[in-house]
């Protein structure tokens, strides 16, 4: 409905669509690409598609959100094909300040440093995942979407999401070398 009005030139309708979807799409693009400039460009291209080719959205094939995620995915894939090894960045706000301030209170500097390092490792490990597993991890773990929502956004069955998530976690554990610690911990525990 909003998109139809937007296609007819209703600026308010377009602004409403933008406000509703820009933030999750930006986070998705940012977490997939690891590059805030790329994420900005991807979101812009997604909404340019909405402006220039609104007829591409077919309500009978899914929701507007799923359509926008689909367009964003295509742009992300193209971006990753061009620059597959973008370094994962710590996200920053528009004013340049870092968002990485969580859990920094009530912690000793050592604890904070360890936590920061571990999260940096996790972030890097996520960016090293194959795209299909990264998508599942980003949507289900970082974005905290349900399996159904993630399946709708990625245009695949729920079972596929579950399986990708399972394998993605396993890959992450392997990358973080936590699995190597398992026998050691088990022995220590036994």
């Amino acid at each position, binding site marked *: 409905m909003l998109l139809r009005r937007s296609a007819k030139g209703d600026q308010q309708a377009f602004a409403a669509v933008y406000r509703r979807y*820009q933030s999750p799409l*930006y986070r998705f693009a940012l977490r997939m690409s690891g590059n805030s400039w790329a994420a900005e460009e991807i979101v812009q291209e997604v909404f340019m598609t909405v402006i220039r080719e609104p007829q591409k959205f077919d309500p009978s094939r899914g929701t507007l959100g799923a359509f926008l995620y689909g367009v964003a995915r295509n742009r992300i894939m193209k971006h990753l094909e061009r620059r597959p090894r973008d370094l994962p960045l710590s996200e920053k706000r528009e004013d340049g300040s870092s968002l990485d301030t*969580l859990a920094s209170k009530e912690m000793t500097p050592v604890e904070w440093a360890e936590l920061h390092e571990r999260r940096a490792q996790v972030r890097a490990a996520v960016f090293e995942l194959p795209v299909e597993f990264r998508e599942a991890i980003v949507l289900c*773990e970082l974005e905290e979407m349900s399996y159904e929502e993630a399946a709708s956004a990625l245009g695949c069955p*729920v079972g*596929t999401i*579950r399986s990708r998530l399972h394998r993605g976690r396993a890959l992450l*554990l392997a990358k973080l070398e936590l699995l190597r*610690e398992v026998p050691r911990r088990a022995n220590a525990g036994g």
Partner: protein
Amino acid sequence: MPEGNEFTVRGPITCEELALACLDFRSTPEGSPVRLAVLEHLRQCPQCAALQENLQTLQDDLRYLGLESKDAETPSRVQMRLMQEFCSKHKSEKTRRTVLTGSWAIAAAAAIVAAVWWTSWRHDHDLSAFGWKATTTQIAKVDANRVSTVHPAAGLEIGEALVASSSSGDFTLLPGSTPSPMEDATVVRVEMQRSALGAFGFTVNEEHASDLIQVDLLVGDDGLPQAVRLLESTE
């Protein structure tokens, strides 16, 4: 376990089943059979307990990673650029639509003008055709009154012509007069010298110029003689 289905248990679970069960462990309700089976297995299997602990740590880290960028939003400059694009796109579309509508309006106006002109031309054409027919009708009417035309340039000898006319009893149209309806015409009989016929534009034989002749003049509505008939008695 089939894809898309929730994990279900009917008793103690294996290490492989635990890995699958752990997939949804966080969202599993307290006291559910799956949760109880997982906890039971974790108590008995230190390796799985360690794996589960690592998985829990990973999920916590991922959640924190998500929270770090939870408030991330597209920079406002993107919205400005998009709004500009939106306005320019719809403005240009509006302009294009206006131009298109204007063109169609002009084309329609031209078509109407052409249609009116053609109708007018057809009307005029029909009138002129009707006028030609009317002339023909007038000539026919003159014929009906048995009036013959004489062209002065033909150099007709008046004597011969008049004699011939007299014999047939027809009026001879005077040179320069145009055929017109004769319904209201008047016939006036006059006596005059033959030379007076010269005034009507006829050529007169000089030898008989002083002879008196009787003629019938066909006088039109305007009072002017239109045709002349030479009477036999004068010959």
